[in-house]
């Protein structure tokens, strides 16, 4: 029908697959028809379609400066993600979007940025780190707090080291279970706050991870004086379309696909505290 049917996927070819952890893979993809890739901003997501299997919301984890590829980091947790991570170089997948409200990288200009990620939640935040580090002087301090289940579950390990070496940047990681060879922090990500000194009035926080982790992180940030409106979280709900037609991602009055996934904490704080919304 209409050429700009938002429900029609566009074919992308897998150019490269990187194994990040035992269950998480990064796929670099390029448009099959060689037309320019879809434009996106950090924090936006695509609906990725595996032919005959299904479609899922997956955040773009690549650099906005990469003008050729769309990159995704996928954790295999179920049917479709399993199939997605087993795609090999040369396989095709369908891409719709990008959809959603991005992280406030413009608004954050000149501010300290605290990025808090849990597990796969680092993937949607990676474009933010790329963005800031490329324009390092335009932003204040950069702090990344990253929690993973175990050292083996940490994503982007090489990059974590690179980022920690960037000027005015701190990267603190923690795990739930360390094992014998782990000499880093053990514990939930909120415990990391005691190692960083925040300048709350000039801080903007971007948080992505399991809902319960985001709830605790947001509370922690709030007790440390960061205003609710300066805390952004990325929410997750079932999505079938990405453009507000299917209704599945409703979260109170908001559609996560188009009013989110990135929300200002002050808007959704009461909903995050409630049950089964």
């Amino acid at each position, binding site marked *: 029908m209409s050429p700009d049917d938002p429900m029609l996927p566009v074919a992308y070819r897998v150019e490269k697959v990187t194994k990040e952890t035992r269950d998480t893979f990064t796929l670099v993809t390029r448009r099959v028809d060689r037309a320019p890739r879809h434009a996106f901003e950090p924090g936006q997501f695509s609906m990725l379609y595996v032919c*005959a299997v*299904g479609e899922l919301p997956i955040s773009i984890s690549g650099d906005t400066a990469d003008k050729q590829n769309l990159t995704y980091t996928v954790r295999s947790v179920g*049917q479709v993600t399993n*199939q997605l991570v087993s*795609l090999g170089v040369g396989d095709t997948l369908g891409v719709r979007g990008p959809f959603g409200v991005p992280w406030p990288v413009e608004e954050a200009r000149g501010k300290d940025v605290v990025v808090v990620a849990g597990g796969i939640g680092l993937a949607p935040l990676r474009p933010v780190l790329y963005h800031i580090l490329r324009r390092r002087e335009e932003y204040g301090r950069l702090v990344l707090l990253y929690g993973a289940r175990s050292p083996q579950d940490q994503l982007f390990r090489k990059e974590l080291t690179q980022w920690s070496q960037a000027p005015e940047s701190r990267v603190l990681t923690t795990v739930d279970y360390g094992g014998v060879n782990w000499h880093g922090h053990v514990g939930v990500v909120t415990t990391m706050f005691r190692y960083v000194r925040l300048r709350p009035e000039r801080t903007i926080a971007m948080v992505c991870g399991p809902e319960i982790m985001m709830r605790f992180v947001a509370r922690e940030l709030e007790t440390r004086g960061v205003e609710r409106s300066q805390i952004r979280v990325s929410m997750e709900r079932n999505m079938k379309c990405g453009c507000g037609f299917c209704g599945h991602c409703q979260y109170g009055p908001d559609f996560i696909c188009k009013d989110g996934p990135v929300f200002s904490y002050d808007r959704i704080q009461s909903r995050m505290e409630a049950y089964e919304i």
Partner: protein
Amino acid sequence: MRSKSQARPKVGVFKFASCDGCQLSLLDAEDELLAVARAIDIAYFPEASSIMKKGPYDIGLVEGSVTTHHDAERIQHIRRQCRTLITIGACATAGGIQALRNWAEVDEFVRAVYASPQFISTLKTSTSIAEHVPVDFELRGCPISKHQLLEVISATLAGRKPNVPTYSVCMECKRRGNVCTMVAHGTPCLGPVTQAGCGALCPAYNRGCYGCFGPMESPNTASLSQQFRVLGQSSGDITRAFRGFNAWAWPFRQASGEGHRS
């Protein structure tokens, strides 16, 4: 979708106490049967073929309920032989209509049917396969829908979760544009508490659903029973309504008892 070429999955079809209807559904997929036979290796399907390849099997389709000591042992053996075990139909998933014996004195039942009851060896109950061994997927219905069976086969081959919804028959009923028999005619209908899958057949034929796909994901049988009473149903009627082809499925079993109390 199958990206890499892989061996055709080896499939076995096994029968327990049943009417054969569910396995017949495969033969009733006339348009797809030959394509199915190309896509999977039908290794064991006595109703259709004299070839009986030994296990193990990638997929076992099990029809029927367990009603004899011998079958109770046989299902253990089959489970060990099958990587994925899929039960098909109300007998296999809930004990079937023959589970009505579970409320009765079986010996008396046998005496009622057979002149020489001593020849008959049967268990006191008819039970679902899942009461005996772990089951990977259940396909409901008395009989199953051949569309759902084909979906399970195609989805398994494609690596997709089968589209087998667990919500109510009403969802399909309304999509199909049926007139609700309960609201418009006052005909009792189990649709609201029954799992979709048949395409809301009975309401489309102007009768109430009799629950052949078993309980839906969150069956509120108490509310439906109350509504049945409003429609003038006696407690005996309500008991009978829930004691059908899925009588032994827990929510229906429970609801059929409630019928007595009121």
